[in-house]
């Protein structure tokens, strides 16, 4: 396989995953903003910006933080490289570059996401924003379905690898946002707003039911962190992403004979996480742990690029 093709497939996976994550984030933030007993208002949208590290870029637009402005910024704004539109554009661009490596179905799901977004310029109303993010998550499911039917060749594993690396990064940022999200003055930890904020995080990763199933004790910050960081059966947890990355690298190694630094980093990370428990993580600092994970993930990304000679 051409190195350029491998890189494009990997990034196709990363961008599709990022688009879906951003869509889920917007959906959950709308929920937090509108459906909780006490609207969290601008705080909710500010935290959404913090999760995707879009705060400084957004403030450069000079707009006030409102549901309308931030959801437009996160969904359709072509000047925001992290917007859903930009991610889908980039995914399609990478997909076009490697069309021969994709099945018709996989390409069509990417192209139809792009086509449906290219018809829209603004999403002012709440309903239209919700409809948009719902269609993006549905298309992401379609993409995963199409992938599932692909031959288990290098192309398949590179896309999967990109998705898993991106997912780890996204989940870590999502949990970390709770660190940035200050409670309004006088609002107690464990109070209504605090609970709403943690629930929103669960919503973003579709884990509300999973949480209730696994933690009979009720909603506590450490239980949510445990689910999203250390539970291997939770598909979007950090440990599940770490496990997937390791697995996909192994599959690629088997097919291509290429193994090296990326495999070492991935294996080490997975083993290390298996030794941790959530209390330990919280005592030594949740934020520090998550920052460390994100940095390690970036290192892994570089090692992957080197190992497979990405141009």
């Amino acid at each position, binding site marked *: 396989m*051409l190195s350029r093709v491998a890189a494009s497939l990997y990034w196709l996976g990363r961008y599709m995953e990022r688009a879906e994550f951003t869509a889920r984030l917007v959906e959950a933030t709308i929920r937090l903003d509108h459906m909780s007993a006490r609207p969290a208002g601008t705080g909710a949208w500010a935290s959404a910006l913090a999760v995707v590290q879009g705060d400084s870029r957004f403030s450069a637009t000079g707009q006030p933080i409102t549901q309308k402005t931030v959801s437009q910024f996160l969904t359709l704004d072509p000047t925001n490289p992290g917007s859903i539109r930009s991610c889908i554009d980039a995914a399609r661009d990478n997909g*076009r570059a490697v069309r*021969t490596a994709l099945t018709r179905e996989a390409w069509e799901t990417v192209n139809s996401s792009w086509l449906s977004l290219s018809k829209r310029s603004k999403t002012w109303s709440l309903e239209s924003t919700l409809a948009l993010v719902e269609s993006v998550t549905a298309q992401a499911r379609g993409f995963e379905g199409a992938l599932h039917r692909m031959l288990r060749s290098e192309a398949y594993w590179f896309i999967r690898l990109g998705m898993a690396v991106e997912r780890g990064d996204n989940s870590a940022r999502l949990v970390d946002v709770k660190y940035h999200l200050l409670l309004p003055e006088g609002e107690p930890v464990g109070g209504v707003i605090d609970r709403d904020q943690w629930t929103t995080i669960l919503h973003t990763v579709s884990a509300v039911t999973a949480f209730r199933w696994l933690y009979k004790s009720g909603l506590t910050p450490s239980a949510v962190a445990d689910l999203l960081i250390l539970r291997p059966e939770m598909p979007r947890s950090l440990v599940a992403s770490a496990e997937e990355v390791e697995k996909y690298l192994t599959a690629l190694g088997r097919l291509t004979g290429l193994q090296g630094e990326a495999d070492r980093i991935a294996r080490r990370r997975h083993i290390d996480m298996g030794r941790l428990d959530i209390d330990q993580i919280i005592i030594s600092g949740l934020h520090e742990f998550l920052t460390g994970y994100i940095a390690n993930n970036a290192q892994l990304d570089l090692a992957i690029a080197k190992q497979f*000679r990405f141009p």
Partner: protein
Amino acid sequence: MGLKRAFDEIYGASDGKAPRQGFETLAKWLNSTDLEDLRGRQGAAEAAFRQLGITFAVYGDDEAAERIIPFDIVPRLFTAREWSRLAVGLEQRVKALNAFVADIYGERAILKDGIIPEELVLANSQFCIPMNGFTPPHGLYTHICGIDLVRTGPDDFYILEDNARTPSGVSYMLENREAMLRLCPDLFENLPVQPVDCYPDSLRAMLASVAPHTAAADPTCVLLTPGRYNSAYYEHSFLADNAGIELVEAPDLIVDDDVVWMMTIQGRKRVDVIYRRIDDAFLDPLVFRPDSYLGVPGLMAAYLAGNVTIVNAPGTGIADDKAIYSYMPEIVRYYSGEEAKLPIVDTWRCREPEALKYVLAHLDELVVKLVDGSGGYGMLVGPTATKQQIEDFRKALMAEPHRYIAQPTLALSTVPTLVESGIAPRHVDFRPFVLSGSNGVTITPGGLTRVALAEGSLVVNSSQGGGTKDSLVLYDTGDEA
């Protein structure tokens, strides 16, 4: 318009009353299928093309950066007899083209014998100096030709252009058929249509057959594309995918010690055959345009060292040049010893004073073309042009007569076509694709039919609002007269 009624592919000269022999089934299908039903099927086909991203870019048109070429649901049809006549003529033509290019870059016998004026070839911008005296692997130059044909009567086919560089459009032949099979199974049920989906296999076999003698038994063939922003990128990816060859861009290739390598995740892999969809001028910045980012530095050196085959060979533009075109009957006769089975359209060479005089006096009835233009640009269609357009063109022509040729306005044949008002005749041309390898000449039974969608229009180019149709070639079932 001043044109006499054109020959219709289905109804001949019967004015829509009686289908020609062999066309009864198609006519019956067309008449018995409800108009709204046809519109629905056509809409479904176009929606599918958009979904697949079968788009093309029109240069200088930012608004419609990606458009699909309109698809018409009514196919054109060739009987087995019509097709076999065409195929024989096409084979003769491509063999002559190849012999001509080989001669021009070799002995130049045709120039020495005074068949063609020397300066027309040697001073032609399409004459590729680095090719002079070089014989490519297997002596083949014009591996892939897309010969444009027009028709004016039952037995009157003319060659309009040879397209011996990097002809495009073959993906439409294949995708249009896919769409037709899916949307009009009722038509195929009753017609013995020859398949076209063998084209990618024929392409791959041809490419493998022209590998340098040094290559391994299973040579590595690649398709070199300018990249995803090129207007024909869809076709490039489609062909590579279906022929099972790697789709590469220039940065994927490097030349080391006159050998071409592609960069894979496992390191370098040697390349034997390059089907390039990049113009000569951009192939190698060390030899041609130095500002080309699309090309591969050192590629020509590797080629001239005999280590890689380039398909088509650089410099084949000399064979499909519009200035050379008018000499094609002589060229065919010179190399094959036979008369051309497919004639060319009468052509006035404006470089000749007598011809220029005639052309200037008849601008309102002629088609005048730039010898180095393409895609319907730089062209005057006299009968449909305004007075102002004719006068502007007259000035351009008088300033540089050597750059122009003129031809009579042909009454191009028509095919019934689905338009706003219903089914109506529209003018068409036809581009079959001819492959020449060391394994012989292969002509896929089908091609690209382009249709001018505006009433009375003779310009079929997609950049000028033309559409496409499926082209069906029937099996010989023995019941033809």
